[in-house]
């Protein structure tokens, strides 16, 4: 069947050639399908309760604390260790060896012996060892400026300056949050069947949400130490402005490329959500109110989103101009169209920048929880995929033409098209980008150069008869096994591949990072280079210890 509209798949979703481009992925905004929203919806539904059974923090702010999330079937505990870190040791990079605070998410309620075991390991992070009882390992550093400002004011009985809080947005910034079998932790496959952990990154999101509670508890504690009985506590409206920061580098960028089935499922869920909303033939008053409320929030968010990076400054200018256009368009929404949401979306495609389109995406699905929230259940993935050796060479080449046309069109003889290579550094085992023209040992390149691998595979297949089997081809060419498997995955998972050259001179790693962080639910994307970003999580969300037991809260 010929698809009359190259921008739409036959199931109404946007085509991968539209969606899977770095420039668009690098303009992604969090949505109600983001993983922290999925986690909060469950935690706020009324059948989870939260407490802090351990708080052994001394007057210097050193010690340990435990926060529990107690659910209908299971309990999870964030074990927090607070440290006294000299300023000169404070670094967000993987090369750091000490942090202001370190954390593990424990499966159950830890005993004193568990806490002692964790205390001997968690503060060491990568240099320590955790066990299958732990679901995540993480650390955080203070925002030095805001930390001092908040404690000083609370100690003096005053609230901190909202402008200072707005300029930073968080008291502590996490860096790596490790899960899924890292450093001895429980394997994802061991816990994936639990309903509360079935969606992606739920343990990590829970850990960061509980960490946010810890950050406000410890500044109030230190303010009380300094100010005594006269010290103030954070006012609810001030607390609401605080999220948890996160700082991340290139280490995150390869994830989406290394997990093609998972990325497909994330993207497909988003696209299905948009397709469902676009087919609605009415805009109910409730949904219109929800849309307008979400629009107001998006404007507030854009107003306090700061960045010094030239790329992001330009994108923020696009976003703010687009929000003005969207606001104007919404005054006439819904009009008389048969499918008002589809009309709004198509207007956006014609009139907005990528930033604006992606924010409109989040706005469109926001008021439609009952229609789209079930899609979160399909966002995890069984990543086992056995290559099909009985496939014929002709069929494999057809996949390459269909899914990798963008790659086959690249001239890799042009040095700019393979100017860089991804590698793992010997010293810290973190992913880095090398310059092929000048850096040594490019033969140790990681297989993240998907476009070139597809092109090389296609070249190698050209001399093979169409009816020969892939099995026979791979017996002669084991070097193409990696790409053959990817291509076969892409055949049945249309959103599995980023459709851009990941080793080109002008590739921006932060585009990959923003896409993943938006799926987490991150806001205030603030690049500090083309390979390093800060973001904020959970701003505006409730705090676990402020929730009333047995009461459902809006998310």
């Amino acid at each position, binding site marked *: 069947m010929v698809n009359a509209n190259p921008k739409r798949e036959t199931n109404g979703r946007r085509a991968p050639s539209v969606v899977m481009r770095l420039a668009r992925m690098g303009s992604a905004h969090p949505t109600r399908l983001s993983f922290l929203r999925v986690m909060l919806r469950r935690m706020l539904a009324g059948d989870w309760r939260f407490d802090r059974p351990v708080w052994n923090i001394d007057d210097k702010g050193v010690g340990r604390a435990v926060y529990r999330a107690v659910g209908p079937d299971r309990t999870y505990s964030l074990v927090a260790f607070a440290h006294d870190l000299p300023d000169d040791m*404070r*670094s*967000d*990079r993987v*090369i750091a*060896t000490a942090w202001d605070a370190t954390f593990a998410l424990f499966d159950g309620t830890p005993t004193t012996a568990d806490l002692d075991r964790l205390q001997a390991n968690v503060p*060491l*992070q*990568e*240099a*320590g*060892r955790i*066990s*299958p009882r732990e679901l995540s390992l993480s650390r955080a550093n203070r*925002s*030095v*400026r805001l930390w001092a400002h908040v404690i000083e004011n609370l100690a003096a009985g005053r609230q901190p300056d909202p402008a200072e809080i707005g300029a930073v947005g968080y008291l502590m910034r996490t860096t790596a949050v490790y899960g899924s*079998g*890292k*450093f*001895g932790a429980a*394997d*994802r496959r061991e816990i994936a069947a639990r309903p509360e952990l079935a969606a992606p990154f739920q343990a990590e999101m829970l850990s960061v949400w509980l960490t946010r509670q810890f950050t406000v508890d410890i500044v109030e504690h230190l303010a009380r130490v300094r100010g005594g009985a006269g010290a103030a506590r954070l006012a609810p409206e001030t607390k609401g402005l605080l999220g948890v920061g996160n*700082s991340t*580098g*290139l280490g995150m960028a390869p994830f989406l490329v290394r997990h093609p089935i998972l990325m497909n499922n994330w993207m497909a869920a988003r696209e299905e959500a948009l397709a469902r909303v676009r087919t609605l033939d009415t805009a109910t008053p409730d949904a219109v109110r929800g849309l307008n409320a979400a629009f107001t929030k998006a404007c507030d968010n854009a107003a306090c989103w700061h960045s010094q990076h030239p790329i992001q400054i330009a994108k923020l200018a696009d976003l703010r101009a687009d929000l003005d256009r969207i606001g104007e368009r919404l005054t006439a929404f819904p009009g008389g169209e048969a499918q008002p949401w589809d009309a709004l979306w198509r207007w956006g495609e014609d009139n907005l920048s990528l930033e604006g389109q992606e924010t409109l995406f989040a706005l469109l699905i926001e008021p439609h929880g009952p229609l789209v929230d079930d899609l979160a259940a399909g966002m995890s993935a069984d990543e086992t995929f*056995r*290559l099909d*050796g*009985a496939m014929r060479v002709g069929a494999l080449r057809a996949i390459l033409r269909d899914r990798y046309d963008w790659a086959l069109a690249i001239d890799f003889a042009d040095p700019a098209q393979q100017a860089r290579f991804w*590698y*793992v*550094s*010997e*010293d*810290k*085992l*973190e992913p*880095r980008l*090398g*310059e092929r023209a000048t*850096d*040594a*040992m490019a033969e*140790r390149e990681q297989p993240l150069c998907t476009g070139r691998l597809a092109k090389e595979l296609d070249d190698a297949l050209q001399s093979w008869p169409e009816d020969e089997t892939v*099995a026979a081809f*791979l*017996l002669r060419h*084991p*070097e*193409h*096994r*990696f790409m*053959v*498997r990817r291509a076969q995955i892409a055949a049945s998972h249309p959103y599995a591949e980023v459709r851009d050259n990941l080793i080109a001179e002008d590739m921006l790693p932060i585009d990959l990072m923003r896409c993943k962080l938006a799926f987490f639910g991150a806001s205030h994307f603030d690049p*500090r*280079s083309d*390979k*390093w970003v*800060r973001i904020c999580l959970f701003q505006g969300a409730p705090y676990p210890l402020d929730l009333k037991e047995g009461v459902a809260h809006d998310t």
Partner: protein
Amino acid sequence: MTPEPNDPTRAGSPLPSEERVLMSQTEIETLCTKAARGAGMSWGNAEEAGFAVGWLHARSIDGASALLAHLERTEGAAWRDVCPVIETGHWHPSGAEPLCPVALGVTLCDFRALPEAALTGGGLTLGPVSRPLILVPFLAEVARLSGPLTVSWDGGAMEVTADSVLGNDIAGLVVTTLVLSAGVAASPAEGKPEPRKCDRAVLARLNDLAMKTTIPPSEKSCADAGAASSDND
């Protein structure tokens, strides 16, 4: 434990001082994938090596030692010397070198639905193959798609189904010729096996191979991997 956070000679978290280390399946898969790649396998085959050891690990069987022994003996071997030559009823090496169990395993999986891998008649003779234990997860993959298998050798035999292996004496074999035939459905082992601890020395040597996938960083790449501004703000 003596933490050495900047130890450049490790591919994952530093190994605890205990002689036996409890590893997650993800860790053992990742380490073995890198080690196999470091020893010269293609990325696609290295992933399969990681899959195989992880599969065994999840069933409390030590595949890491067998993979290490194979990799250390054949590091850098040419594919044509360790991949199977397919003849009717007999897949054998091209020369004196035994087959690589990963090369044989992936080829069996690739051909599982094709006439070359038919198990009719006297079955399919395979080998000689190095460290046949590493072949078992691939046989389980074939069994998942084509039904249970019996694998036999001079002095032993075992049943392989999609989920389980019965009879464990294949673990001790170094180089053997195997005969593969259609098997009977065996009842799977009861319960979930205890997580298996790995030998520290084996992990350390796998790690040495894994480090061959890494690159000493250039000053520039090291410098621009972080933020362009201070983190101490």
